[in-house]
């Protein structure tokens, strides 16, 4: 599953800045000891809108982020291909895999949902490496799962900043960057209008709840951003 292990070090999930005094022992998987509320019985308030940006797809083509965060319900996460922490990117993708398998059982729902992964190491994760990485996840033709990278770190930084996704880099004794990244695992649930409606960190990454949240958004009236501006309403 993890092909790009050239620079494998550790993806210290949940430990945003590797502080000297900070414990870096593995986090634990989330426990879930409750029955989640049925879809549509609760509200998910809009946390923030997603700012647009230009990124690159697996073929190196420029793509507007807004094209992949609107008109469908989107689960978006940041990752890097060589992350090896079992409770880091691999755990997030394992959870998303399970969710995808559940979602495709409902073809109508599957048409309305997409997953997006954005690399937080554009220097390593080139479009070519993304394309290779994506083959492990884009096995289901009925489901849209996209992977993006950026032209440069500078092009990525505004996106990270907008999502509040911090990423830090280990430095060596000379203060030079190594290949060890640290980032706090977050998965963003984005509605059809491009608004973040839920954010899942590790303690919150509960697939049953996530599926019900997706269905809650699915049950909402479908109004695209363009329709919202004109007052138009799409057929249900």
């Amino acid at each position, binding site marked *: 599953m993890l092909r790009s292990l050239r620079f494998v070090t550790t993806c210290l999930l*949940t*430990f*945003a*800045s*590797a*502080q*000297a*005094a*900070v*414990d870096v*022992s593995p986090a*634990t998987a*989330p*426990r*879930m*000891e*409750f029955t*989640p*509320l049925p879809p549509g*019985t*609760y*509200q998910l*308030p*809009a*946390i*923030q809108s997603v700012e647009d940006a230009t990124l690159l797809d697996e073929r190196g083509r420029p793509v507007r982020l807004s094209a992949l965060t609107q008109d469908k319900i989107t689960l978006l996460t940041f990752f890097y291909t060589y992350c090896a922490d079992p409770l880091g990117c691999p755990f997030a993708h394992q959870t998303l895999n399970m969710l995808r398998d559940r979602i495709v059982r409902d073809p109508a729902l599957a048409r309305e949902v997409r997953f997006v992964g954005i690399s*937080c190491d554009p220097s390593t994760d080139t479009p070519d490496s993304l394309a290779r990485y994506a083959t492990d996840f884009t096995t289901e033709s009925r489901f849209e799962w996209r992977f993006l990278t950026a032209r440069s*770190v*500078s092009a*990525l*930084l505004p996106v*990270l900043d907008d*999502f*509040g996704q*911090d*990423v*830090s*880099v*280990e*430095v*060596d004794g000379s*203060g030079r*960057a190594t290949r060890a990244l*640290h980032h*706090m695992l*977050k998965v*963003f649930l984005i509605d059809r209008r491009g608004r*973040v409606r839920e*954010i*899942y*960190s590790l*303690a*919150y990454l509960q697939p049953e*709840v996530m599926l019900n949240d997706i269905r809650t958004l699915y049950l909402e009236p479908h109004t695209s951003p363009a329709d919202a501006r004109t007052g138009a309403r799409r057929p249900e």
Partner: protein
Amino acid sequence: MRQSSKCTVVLASIYACFGAALPNAFADETCNSPYMSNLIKGQEDFVHVWTLGVKGLGDGSDKLVTIDANPASKTYGKVVDRVPVGGRGEAHHMGFTDDRKFLWAGGLDDSKIYVFDVGTDPSKPKLVRTIADLPAKTKFIGPHTFYALPGRMLIGNLSNTADKGGVTGMALYNNKGSLIARYDMPTASIGGVKGDGYGYDIAINPAKNVLLTSSFAGWQNYMRELGDLIKDPEAMKHFGSTMVVWNLKSMQPTQVLSVPGAPLEIRWSLAPGQNWAITAAALTSKLWLIKQGEGGAWAATEVGTIGNPAQVPLPVDISITAGGKGLWVNTFMDGTTHYFDLTDPEHPKETYQKRIGSQVNMISQSWDGKRVYTTSSLLAHWDKKGADNEQFLRAFNWDGHALTPAFEVDFTKEKLGRPHHMKFTGKAGQSRTLAAIAGQ
């Protein structure tokens, strides 16, 4: 008569007359939100202290004071930074954002929220944002508890703009500082218990999808001189006596629990599978256990006594050990910290106590429990007077049997003010932000 003695008598009278509740607190590494990253499980480097300004003392402003807490450092035990915010608004509590990069700190009087960057250089925090729209947008005032959710901050408030009483609610902001939603504390009966609408602390158990809140008092009471307050029988009726169980996902209250005597700080056991929480009721000086019954309903049960309730020791801040086996409880009036063995949470046993000073409020412990920090101030108008108005941070080492002094900062001598809430940070170490790397 010394002020402390007078105050004790006064508070004893309050209790005897009204059976109502009082004060507050909250802190430490074991009480952070479960959604927060970067728990410091080794040696903390800095203790940040949200400090109330005192007129005529130094710059007189509320400020974030940073103290070096690493024994290996040359400046160990010294104040290494101070960030005044330019006014006195009753500085009180703080909370980290989920990524531990920013500290949100509130003023109970001016209802302003100050956001400090402690991630870039924790030895030199910077004030990066002031949020002043809480009263206008929510009608709540007195932001007390700052509890991180992924990408956002849930704020437990103490009062409201209409009558400045205790009926209040929670406000949810995103990490950019924009209001997302507001939630009223329940005033109706739920599960046979009528809500009082009061608020105070917030504590979440993600595994149970449960949020607990507790209750204190409104601006009319906490901003009043204690001597005046206790002479007002009507005002003394207005203290919280409930806790509320919320469905975290829907943010709807599901149960109101009767917990008389102003239940203040709430601490969930952090031991996996131990789905219970504990709180201390200030005026009744009791420990309460909140636990789910076999039928799924939650219940609050009185499980212990702190000191001699007849003397109104006034338990304020509590701090649970990482393993959920021990609990520190500070009692303000006698300036004493108590350690309870929580091996059986249904029957806490006090196994140690030590007088810290003439007054003591907050207590914070390191994740490993080896270091314990205390501060003195409760509220500007409720602190003791005269010689008993000691204002300090006193740090101790804990070997499981006794507290031994580590260092002390005299906040009056240093012209800092009244020290209240504490939070820990660690040095950046061998990592840099991606932005910093890109800028190299």
